[in-house]
């Protein structure tokens, strides 16, 4: 918000962000802020953007849509795709805590492989989430979005910079912010920001920027910051089964391989 300035209109989906910022009868928002449904902030924001244009007032406010990973990658995907396809001048921000947290941590399309959620149980015969994390930035890029970036609460300055930069582009823009979920991931609140940094510094959550479909910048991992994926996995209860049942080592190896592949693909290692 600090980065977007006061002249914004926000369409917000149902989810943790909406719940914790608007404990009825209060609200922490100090800008026009509309909450409609879980699945449609992209449509609401599209309507606002078009209305501003029709009134000739599009220079007076920027339009931002916000939703969780479930609201974006799953149930709101159609509305979001429509917003991208029509080319609205909107910044869409996805708060990616890797599950439907607000309703008790059910699996979403952005839940990583092997993570325990209430709908992807883990035990002696099951390894949690069966599928890999959906590559949402690539899907957005395929729509021809002007600007795409990933970021993380591990590095708040990076978020502010990217919000500012995104708003300099005309057309649809997408920002995906990795946010640890304390109860869902099963971690102590104190280590949440450190966990977010491990996700980046292990290569599991690549931080990059794309302009018109081309990667223009990546956040490099400094040599002294580089960690193995276990640093990230071990403290989290959602990955505890990988350490409990025989065969877990193979899964951890596969996760490390995925992180290494990211490091290679995006060129994440600093010289």
């Amino acid at each position, binding site marked *: 918000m600090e980065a977007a300035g006061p002249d914004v209109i926000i369409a917000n989906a149902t989810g943790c962000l909406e719940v914790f*910022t*608007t*404990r*009825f*009868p*209060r*609200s*922490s*928002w*100090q*800008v026009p*802020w509309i909450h409609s449904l879980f699945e449609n902030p992209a449509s609401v924001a599209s309507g606002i953007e078009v209305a501003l244009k029709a009134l000739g007032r599009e220079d007076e406010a920027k339009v931002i849509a916000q939703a969780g990973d479930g609201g974006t990658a799953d149930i709101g995907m159609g509305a979001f795709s429509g917003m991208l396809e029509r080319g609205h001048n909107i910044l869409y921000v996805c708060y990616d805590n890797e599950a439907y947290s607000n309703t008790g941590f059910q699996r979403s399309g952005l839940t990583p492989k092997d993570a325990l959620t209430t709908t992807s149980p883990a035990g002696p015969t099951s390894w949690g989430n069966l599928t890999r994390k959906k590559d949402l930035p690539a899907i957005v890029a395929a729509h021809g979005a002007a600007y795409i970036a990933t970021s993380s*609460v591990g590095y*708040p*300055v990076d978020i502010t910079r990217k919000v500012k930069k995104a708003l300099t582009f005309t057309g649809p823009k997408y920002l995906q912010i990795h946010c640890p979920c304390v109860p869902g991931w099963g971690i*102590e*609140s*104190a*280590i*949440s*920001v*450190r966990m977010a940094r491990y996700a980046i510094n292990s290569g599991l959550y690549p931080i990059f920027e794309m302009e018109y479909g081309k990667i223009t910048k990546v956040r490099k991992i400094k040599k002294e910051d580089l960690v193995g994926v276990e640093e990230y996995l071990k403290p989290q209860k959602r990955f505890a089964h990988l350490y409990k049942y025989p065969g877990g080592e193979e899964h951890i190896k596969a996760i490390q391989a995925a992180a290494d592949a990211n490091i290679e693909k995006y060129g994440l290692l600093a010289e």
Partner: protein
Amino acid sequence: MKPMFGVVVQPGTTRDQKKTGWRIYRPRFKQKDCIGCLDCLRSCPDGAVYQIDKKKFDSDMDACKGCGVCADLCPVDDIDMELEEQQ
């Protein structure tokens, strides 16, 4: 106000909601070895940390929820988490 289809609430009103009762631990800024890296200030989820001087920080106890993020991040261990009762 009885909500029916939509409700409008007053903006910025969560600010006066104090989080004192949420805490089990509270941070104590020792203000001894601080190097002024700003990590606590930038990473506090509730914006409770404020700057007094270049290398001197403290936390607003009306806004702090006692999560411990600041103490976990501080590179020089200049923030302690202490049980509320011990205060």
